[in-house]
């Protein structure tokens, strides 16, 4: 059996290192799942996310898209909640419930994409700074210090102001929103990943890999990254909440894409249509509640993951 053979040969009495590693990973995953299942708040968050995600994905199957346009609105303006329109209608007569289910698609997509951008950015910067800071010689230490100074600078800047400024000067559209959020919320991830990288780099097997001639890329990709992933996972979950709130905020400030329906966009439309001072609560309350529920669910999941990964955080005495 060679290292190149990924499959354990059935005849071999001793499983290959890869099979062992896979089994170990499976067991670790099982432990993780069991431990997570014990966290009631985390399970609640996961369940509510599943429901919302299913609704968002299957929306085209039960919502007539033409009913979402201003001209094709099925009802009268500002109808209060009824059997036909469980959450009433907006100023054009569209069903608020339909708008919200449809809006979940954009809000979730933007939130997730922006998180991918910022987590990638934060992880790359964090691992680079951590790795070269601990084993890159003088030049590496300087590069690492510069990176962390930049991170600190971004960390201090008012996030919303920067994101709004970016959204204002870049051409309008959903892509811009993703970039604007992604480019502003990464610093905490970078700090966290760097700290974790430093901890991993101090472990003996990384030292051994380096002594055996493993290059920087090899060490970072094969040894540091897998060990940093759990922390990144928890951080990612928490960041989605931040990103979704940021998306709605940008949309509310009028920076969103006016051609798509998102939760923040609905709220902005409600405000500009005068629903606030007129007290049309069914147009105001549901979108915000939707944002809050999704953000809270992601936060609960993130905290649950965090407490599974780091039992010291488990705060039940």
């Amino acid at each position, binding site marked *: 059996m060679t290292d190149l053979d990924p499959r354990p040969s059935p005849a071999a009495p001793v499983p290959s290192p890869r099979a062992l590693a896979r089994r170990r990973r499976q067991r670790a995953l099982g432990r993780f799942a069991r431990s997570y299942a014990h966290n009631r708040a985390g399970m609640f968050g996961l369940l509510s996310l599943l429901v919302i995600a299913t609704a968002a994905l299957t929306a085209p199957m039960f919502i007539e898209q033409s009913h979402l346009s201003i001209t094709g609105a099925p009802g009268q303006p500002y109808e209060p909640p009824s059997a036909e329109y469980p959450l009433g209608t907006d100023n054009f007569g569209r069903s608020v419930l339909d708008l919200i289910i449809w809006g979940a698609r954009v809000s979730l997509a933007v939130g997730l994409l922006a998180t991918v951008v910022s987590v990638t950015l934060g992880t790359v910067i964090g691992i680079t700074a951590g790795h070269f800071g601990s084993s890159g010689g003088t030049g590496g230490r300087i590069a690492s210090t510069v990176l962390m100074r930049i991170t600190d600078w971004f960390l201090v800047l*008012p996030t919303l102001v920067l994101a709004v*400024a970016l959204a204002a*000067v870049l051409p309008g559209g959903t892509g811009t929103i993703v970039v604007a959020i992604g480019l502003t919320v990464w610093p905490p991830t970078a700090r966290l990943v760097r700290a974790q990288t430093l901890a991993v780099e101090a472990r003996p097997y990384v030292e051994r890999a380096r002594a055996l001639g493993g290059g920087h890329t090899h060490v970072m990709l094969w040894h540091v990254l897998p060990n940093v992933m759990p922390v990144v996972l928890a951080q990612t979950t928490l960041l989605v909440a931040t990103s979704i709130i940021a998306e*709605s905020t940008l949309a509310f400030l009028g920076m969103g894409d006016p051609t798509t329906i998102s939760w923040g966009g609905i*709220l902005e439309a409600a405000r500009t249509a005068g629903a606030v*001072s007129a*007290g049309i609560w069914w147009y105001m309350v549901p979108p915000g509640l939707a*944002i809050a529920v999704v953000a809270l669910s992601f936060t609960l999941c993130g905290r649950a993951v965090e407490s599974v990964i780091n039992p010291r955080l488990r705060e039940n005495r």
Partner: protein
Amino acid sequence: MTATPTATEEPAGSPREDAPAGGGGRVRRVVLYVLGRLTTAVVSLGAVIVAGFFLFRILPGDPVRAMTEGREVSLEQQEELRRQFGLDQPLWAQFLDYASGLLRLDLGVSFQYREPVADLILERLGPTLLLAGTGTLLAALLGLFLGARAGWRPGGRGDRVNTAVALFFWSVPTFWLGLLLIVLLASGRGFFPGLFPTSGMTAPDATGFEAVVSTAHHMVLPVVTMVAVIYAQYLMIMRSSLIDEKGADYLTTARAKGLRDALVRRRHAVPNALLPTVTLVFLNLGQVVSGVILVETVFSWPGLGYLFYSGLHVPDLGLVQGLFVLFAASVILMNLLADLVYPLLDPRVRP
């Protein structure tokens, strides 16, 4: 008395002996520390200035086209605008012009108001300071107080309720909370129709003491919104900081001395837990700026946040740029302040 000699008992290199004797060394270390922090702040400010220039002059391509998009503006008018904003100059000259203007506290001219940005800011600084100051202070007090309680008995009922409420408010978009308060308490259709004004800062005809009361009345909802959104993070920071301290040995010492539980917390645990909290509270001031922008927008509070919002829609890049630099600079200065204040709170890091 015991027979122990005192003069030669300690090994060389006890902390006291390491330190250079006399006050001169102390002063030097303090000066070095302050200088170091000042340098960092100045470099950060420089970066903000460069970023402001980059963001609003280079990134949009042609700022004038960005500003006049969708408007009936003739080519001549565009040229005129370009000259007015100095955009016909080479980039380096533009930057020098902009940077030297900043040194003279000249933040450029607003496209929308046709007024110097600095004047606009000065006009609206007061209301923002009033709102942000009150909101932050109340949020910090509330958050630290509740956080200290929640963190002292983690897992207890008080903790679970507090954490749940804080997490909920943390997950709620600021502006929506404000809108909700307006619908419920200020609009004509809520539970308490017209209990509070929906917008503005003072009733237009109020004078003297009446104006003060009117302002306080107008402030209630904006401040409540700000506090609700900001206090949650203070609570969480204080809570986890206190949980970190909970296992500390000096708390067992305090208990062994016969202190009541509340006293152990107040006198020993909280002062220690406050230290990391203070740093983080200052680090999170950027969030306060975000909160102010949203709250002022929702409640039409005549401050810098509302000004920023009004500049965004035009878009009035000169105004937005000036406010960007101002917001970033104020957060950096507050962090500098935190760095300078911190050693006064924690004897261990005193230079």
